[in-house]
Structure formats: C-alpha cells, structure tokens
C-alpha cells in the first residue's frame, strides 16, 4: 500500500516543530510512533501534504513526578508507561491500561501523545485518563494551554488540538491513601481495540467506605464517558461488592454505544455494566489491600 506523496520535516527542537506547525499546520500531520497515522496514509484515507516527525526532538519522552503530579512526555511509549516503576507505585491505573494496548510491538512504538491526538473512540488511555481527571498540555508558538482530557477529546478522531499546536505532555495525579484501580477491557481478539473498556478508581476512607469513586468507559460512545451515576451511587456508602453490583447497573445510563459488525449497541451497553462491576470489584480489593497495609 503506497501513500500519496508528502514532504517530511524532522525538527530537532520543540521550537522548530512549533514553527513548522505555525507555518504548515493546516496541511500537516504530526508523526510520533506512527501506529495510527501510517496505516491511514498507506490506505490513502489520510493524505497530508506535510508530515512532521517529532521523534528526533530531545526531551519529549519522560515520566517524572513534579509538583504533586506525574508528568508524562508525549513521546513516551506505551511500553515505557506499562513498565514505569513510578507509575506502578503512584498511578498504577495508567500502567495497567497501557499493558492492554495492542501487542508488544505496538507498545514499543506507539506513544501516549500520538494515541490521544488520534482520539480513537475505542482507545484504552482515554478511559483511564478520564477517570483520573488528567490534563493534557498543548503548546504552540503562541503559548501553552492545559486542558482536561475529557474536554480535549471532542468526538471520534476529533480533538481540540489546533493546527498550530503540539500535544507535549500528559499529567496524571499522584494517587494516595487507600486507593485501588483497575482497567477491564473486553476484546474479542487479543491486541484489538476495546469492545468496551472500563477504568475504575476507588479510594476508601479509613473506616472502609467509598470516599471517592471514579469510573470511565471507552468504546461506548463518541468519546470517553464518565459513569457519574455509578460514582454517585457509591460515594459515601459502605464499601461492598453487593453495592458495586447494584451501582454498576447505572453504567449504562445515557449510553448509546455504536453498533458495528462485531457487536451491537445493546451488547456494548450490557457489557458496560458487567465490566464496570468487574473493574470496581477489583479496584475495591486492591484498595482494601492497601488499607490493610497502611
């Protein structure tokens, strides 16, 4: 499969990249790991006039704790996120989610910035990042914007990224207290996008009740969905698997998932409940372990 003709720029600094975007942004695509863009170009579904490859810019790949948040550079690969000790300790939801993306070859090449900018409606990160109420940092020659991931992603393959902007960083909170997380993904074939993916975060009070519950789903709508009904139902209540089972039914509230050749909207709705329950139960167990060890 042969893409249409395009010109490639390989900026060596962030400033150079932003200059290029300011000049060519309307007709350019940014290339990071290439796992979404290159197949689309090869099928000629996307025919950018310019491709700006950001892989040679130093300092775009990092995971570090700073000012109470964990900052992740846009060029950080899924595998680096999966393997990060810092994330495993302080935000295991993100590393667990990364471990469900594609296969090892994909995880070695694909980047968090590329995945978010591509905004596939069934991608794994958006569920976790929505549940974590994470931020993305967008830079242009004119300045910087920080947006919530849930605001940044506007629809299928649609984001608030402006033509002259580059997604440079993702910020997730340092989790503390008696928290537990889980990402559950229903797929039919290993390595595929989710039929339904559910990210859950549970924080218990010292007495063992639900202090904070966050649930977000992917694959069930045009963009990641917060299951606010489930969260409300549980927060403040005594933690139990029965309570979760009951609350999880509310995961399908307001959902209108897509139908495709793989599964119907209704199946995805039903599975949203099942996976929400399973994710919350696992998150609860992990939170309880943490509570016990504290």
């Amino acid at each position, binding site marked *: *499969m*042969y*893409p*249409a*003709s395009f010109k490639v720029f390989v900026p060596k600094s962030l400033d150079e990249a932003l200059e290029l975007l300011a000049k060519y942004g309307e007709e350019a695509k940014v290339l990071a790991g290439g796992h979404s863009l290159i197949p689309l170009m090869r*099928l*000629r579904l996307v025919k950018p006039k310019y491709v700006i490859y950001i892989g040679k810019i130093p300092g775009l790949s990092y995971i570090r704790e700073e000012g109470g948040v964990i900052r992740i550079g846009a060029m950080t690969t899924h595998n680096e996120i999966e393997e990060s000790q810092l994330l495993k300790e302080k935000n295991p939801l993100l590393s667990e989610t990364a471990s469900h993306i594609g*296969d090892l070859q994909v995880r070695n090449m694909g980047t968090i910035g590329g995945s978010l900018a591509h905004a596939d409606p069934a991608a794994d990160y958006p569920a976790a990042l929505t549940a974590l109420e994470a931020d993305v940092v967008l830079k242009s020659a004119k300045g910087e914007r920080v947006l919530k991931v849930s605001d940044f992603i506007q629809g299928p393959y649609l984001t608030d990224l402006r033509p002259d902007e580059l997604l440079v960083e993702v910020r997730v909170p340092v989790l503390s207290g008696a928290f537990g997380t889980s990402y559950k993904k*229903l797929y*039919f*074939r*290993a*390595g*595929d996008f989710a*039929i339904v993916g559910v990210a859950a975060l549970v924080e218990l009070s010292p007495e063992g009740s639900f202090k904070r519950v966050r649930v977000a789903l992917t694959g069930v709508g045009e963009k990641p969905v917060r299951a606010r009904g489930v969260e409300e139902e549980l927060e403040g209540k005594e933690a139990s698997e029965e309570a979760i089972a009951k609350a999880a039914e509310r995961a399908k509230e307001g959902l209108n998932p897509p139908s495709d*050749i*793989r*599964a*119907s909207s209704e*199946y995805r709705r*039903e*599975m949203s409940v*099942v*996976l929400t329950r399973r994710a919350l139960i696992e998150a609860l167990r992990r939170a309880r372990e943490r509570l016990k060890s504290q």
Partner: protein
Amino acid sequence: MARERRYIGKRIKRKEDPRLITGKGLYVDDIHLPGMVYAAFLRPPYAHARIKSIDTSKAEKIPGVIGVFTGEYFKDKVAPLTTAWALTNADLKPVKWPVVAYDKVRFTGDIVAVVVAEDPYTAYDALEAIEVEYEPLPVVVDVEEAVKPGAPQLHDEAPGNIAFKWTFRGGRDFDEVAKEADIIVKKRFINQRLIPSAMETRAAVASYNPATGELTVWVTSQNPHVHRLIMASVLGIPEHKLRVIAPDVGGGFGSKIPVYPGEVIVARLAMDLGRPVKWVETRRENFLGTIHGRDHVDYVEVAAKKNGEVLGVRVRTLANLGAYISTAAPGVPTILFGLMLSGPYKIKSVDVEVKGVLTNTTPVDAYRGAGRPEATYILERMMDIVARRLGMDPADVRRVNLIEKAPYTAVTGLTYDSGRYLEVFEKALKIAEYYKWREVQSEERRKGRLIGIGISSYIEMCGLAPSRIARATGFGLGLWESVLVRVHPTGKVSVYTGSHPHGQGEETSFAQIVAEELGIPIEDVEIVHGDTAQTPFGMGTYGSRTTPVGGAAVYRAVAKIKEKARKIAAALLEAREEDIEFSEGKFYVKGHPEKSVTFQDVALAAYTADKLPPDVEPGLEAIAFYDPENFTFPYGTHIAVVEVDPETFKVKILRYVAVDDAGVIINPLLAEGQVHGGVVQGIAQALYEYAVYDENGNLLTAGFNDYMIPTALDVPNIESYFEETPAPHNPLGAKGIGETGTIAATPAVVNAVLDALAHLGIEHIDMPLTPYRIWKALKEAGLLEKLKAGGE
C-alpha cells in the same frame, strides 16, 4: 528392514528455516530486474455495474506513467479465465472471467484499468486520476437471494445465477432409511465465508525476451506447472516458451492454486512494453481479489435410530462461488464435500445436491481443507445434536457409528485404506480425560461456570490423488506427481520435484527420504522446486498431497537409483549383482563386509564410466511419476474443552487434544507444525473469522482490523499425538497431514461451546461463535434471564 532408521520418523529441524527466518528468502517481491516497471490495478467502487466510459487521459499525463490499459486493450489479446475443474454431469455453465473487465464489473475485486509506471508510488497516484463512469446495477451477495426468481443476474451464460447443479446418491435411498429411523433431525447450517490470508500477498513479475520469444513469469503459486499450462493457453503462447518460477512462497492455504488476472496482465504487458513488469498485491487487494473459502448454506437432514445409530444423511447445499468460477472451484463443494458426507461412520445413505451459485462477491475456491471441513462440520454437529435429542453422551453416539475396521468401502464409493477408527477415538478420550471433564462440567455448572467438551472425529480423502478418479470428475489434469533425482559425481544429490512446498517443509522431509534410502548425510541432499525450467511437469502442493504423492515419487526414483547403483557396485567389486548388499551408504559383497564401495564411489564411477557393466549407461539419475492407486485417508479425533464466560460469552479453550493417524510420519516436528497451524485455522473459523459483505457488495472485513485472524495469544496449547497405521498402497506408508487440523478443529470447538450452553436449551448457533453472536443467540431465544437465574 530391521535396521534403525536414521532420518525417517526423526524430529529433524527444517533445512529451510535459517534462510527464511533470517530474512534471506527470495519472494517474488524480492525480484528486481533492470528496467523493471510497476503495475497497479484500479478496482471498482461498485460490486455490480456497467462500465459506461473510462477516461485515462489525466492519468496518462502524470510524469512517470508509461501507460494506462483498460479492458478494451486486453479483450482480444488475452483469453478470459475459465475453471480447470469442468465438473461432469453437473450442467456446468461456461462462465468467463475477463482479466480486465470491459463491459461489466461483478465484484469489487474486479480490475477496471491497469496503470504501468516507473515506480509504484506514481502508479498508485495515477489510479486516482482515472475517471470511470459506472451505471450501478442491482447487487446480490447472499446465495439464498441469488437463486430467487428476479434476482440480479451476473452472467448471461448462467441463468438464475446457477453455475452448476451436482447431485450424488450413495448407498440406500434416504427416504427408505428414514422409514427405519426413530428420529429425523433437520438443521440449517451456515458455513461462513473465510479469507485465506497468506502472509505473503500475491505477486508477479514478468520479463519477455523478444530475441528468443521466451517469457519468464515469477509468480506466487502453489503449482507453477499448472500456472504455466493455463497461462500459456490464456496468453496464446507456446508452453515451452513460457517459464514460470514460483520462488519462496509465503503461504497459500489454497489461495495460490488458482490462476488470477494479475499474473496474466503483467505477462501480457511485459510482452507488449518490452520491459519487465512487476505487480505486488496490496493487503487490501488480497482481501478483495484473492479467493475466499467455504461459504455454504447447508440444509441437513439426518435419520437416526434411538440407540444413536445414524442411518442416513441428506444435504441440500447452496455454495457461494462468488462472481466467477475460479480454477478449482467446482470440485470443492462437490467432490471434496459430498463424497465425505459419511465420514468415519457406518452411514448407510448419503444424498447430496449442491448448487454452485454466482453472487457479487470475491470468487470462492479451495481453502485449507476445501470441502472436507464443511462436510465434517455437518456430521460432527449432527452427531452432537442427535446425542442431545436422544439424551445420550456424544461420545456414545460416535461409538455406535464409528467404522470398526479398514479397508472399508463407504456408501460414497470411497475405499478407506487403513485405520483403527474406534481405537484412536478411545485414545483421544483417554488423553483428554473426557469423563473427568464431564464431572468437572457438572460440578462447576452448579457454581455458575459454563464448561463444555467437544468431540470431532473425522476422516478425509487427501493426497489428491489417482488420475483416473480426478479425470472422471472433470478435473483438467491427472493428479500424479513427478520427481527427477540427480546424483552428482561426488555423490551429492539434487531432487527436482514437481511439488511446490510453500511453508510445509519438504525441503527437509524429502531430503530425509533420500538420505534414509541412500544412506547419505541429509546435508548432501538439496530439494529444488518451483521452476518449470528445472523441474519435471508436476501438479504442485495442495490437498495434503505433497508427502504421500510427491514423497512417494521421491521414494520410487531413489529406488531406481539404488537399482542402477547396485549394478555399478557389482562391477566395481567384481561380484554378481545378486550378491551385493546395501546398508548405511555402502555396497558390499554378501558375507564379505570388507569388500565394499561407498555410494559416493559408485556415483563417481557412474560418471567416469570406464568400469560400467555393458548394459549400464553412464550417469546416475532417475525420474519417477507416481500416480497413486487411491487417495490416502487420514483420520483422528480431536477434543476441545472450553469455558464460556457467562456474562460476556467470551470463549476460552482450556484444553485441546488432537490424536491423528496420518500413517507413517516422516518428520514429527513438521507434522506437529501442520497440526498446530491447521488447528489454529480451525479454531479461527469456529470462534473468530468471517467475511462480511454489506447489501451493496462492499466487503466490510477488508483488513486485519475487521477480519479477525486469531493471534498466538488467542489460541491454546495444542496437544498433538500421532498414531501410525501405514497407508497400505503408499510406498512410504504415508498419508497427508496438512489439512487434518483445519478439518477437525472447527466442529470440536463449536461442539464444545454448544455443549457448555446445552443445558439452557440451545441446540445450535452459527459460526463464528464470537461473544456477541453467542449473547445474541441466547437473547433471541430468551435464555439470558434463565442463565442469570442459575441455568436450570
């Protein structure tokens, strides 16, 4: 022979592997010739349309474009493709497949125009600049719709879209045995369309030498000589002026048997343009334009007695052929399907009628197993359903029906050569711990777990096969195999086989046969295949025929070599020929092992030629054409144990046991590889793969995103065991092993999944059993609530 075998039966690592796994193979895409140009094909956006006009002027003006060629260009220069399996007594219609469409397109993989350019990028740019005006026509993709009165018609030659109607009756009359039956089970099964998905897409390079009039075509093919024969005829050039080379071939699974428009187009253009022309299929084109497999709707009736004895099988099949009749297509849903409908069972009546139906879809032809998986699926599903209806264990139903001993003449007229069907069945049950799993199943069901056990006992006709039978069915050629074994003066051996292994490993297994029989190191044997200028006319690799037919030819040729070598050895040792013994690569005088010459000494003497007996010619080589007297009939039992998630309905295979009897195994490592690959493709049909068209004839699964071939993470550990009952008519005792896994695995897994759900009261769900499709079937049957309530 009492002596220990050195090579046959040994787990020898593949000689071809170091080359292939280090990226040093030579595939068609690796062929680069001076002055070579690139072809790209324009495929239509409609599955059925009249071509009103084509404007190529813009494309032609793009720098680097050498020419744009439409159907009008090829119409009178190249004959249309027709099938090579002219099924007899079936009213086969003479459907023609123009290599480039000129009046109508009939599926989205048809070719409307060809661009030739200096590089592939320019060629694909130019495709986008071609303007075609179409008049869309009504589309039909479904076989049941296509045979209805008033359905859109694809070809004038095939009214009602019926390409052929084949009937077969074996044994007693079905209605008669039905009168003796206690139950009649009727079912409609869909054997869904699959896409072969070889790792290497198809490709061709053609180069013409005007000085000699010779055309050389490199093409991914399972049968280069068949390619040459058909292409010479279609192109109208003498066969001896065409050389076909199929270098390393990256898998075929049947999809590289047929002759397609692509290779014919580049061949013709190479002649016309005077420059070598290359075409490499894109993956999307492979999905659209390379044959698909299976795609039946089967209406099945089975008559059984209350002890489980199945008396008769009646099948009415609509087989989707796609838009044209591909090279071997008519034989697949008929001979290779209908004749297998009594399986390894003592069934007394088989009654089959198959309509080959044309639709606006990709042509369907042989895909691994080709007809036999479809037949086995019907029988094995029915064995389970009969068991269910009679309240019997599915194992017991098979016990009642399995053939006790071979040779056995089935009601289909086939003579099963050798086998211990019941014994192998019992062995599989034992290894898989069948009865232990039955206990686990009922215990765990109480806890809400859904565990199922599926059995599949199969037999297949393979090692395709005796020429007299092939010809009687209308097959265009005989089905023997050839080999030339050439011993060089140093005693090294080159084997030029008419088979064409493309992943199976015969560069190793054929070398094992030669090394064993000549007592020489395996390193001294080279297998040469794939080039019509080097190898004798041969039939190629498909139908699990390479070892039992091609390998038997090797054995026969080596026997001729030994016979001549013995004569030469006798002369060298100044002894009588009958006193010469041959062992471990040495000829010696009986009783005087010190008086010996090595095989290498003899080889040299054959070429120095000064000490040859008077009746012996110089040189040491032999050719053999082996035409088997019968098919070989491997058989076996596979058992799958699965767990179905009671909420998501995702299936996990907990255990998979395959016990296969393919006669003498030349190399267990390779045979296991065949079983593993076959089983994975069988599981793929059961749980993952299906080609989906929308009502307009667009293939919705035209990429690996949407077409789910399972990955290594999706498949279980496969426990493979062999029994070895030699094929009595085969010089090696070998039977085919290439397709057994694909044939056996699909029903084993489907039976297991439905066994896990049977207590809910559901009898059948059509494949693939994806989580969604299971959920949907249970929902439509109103069973989801029952399951939530505990399933009882």
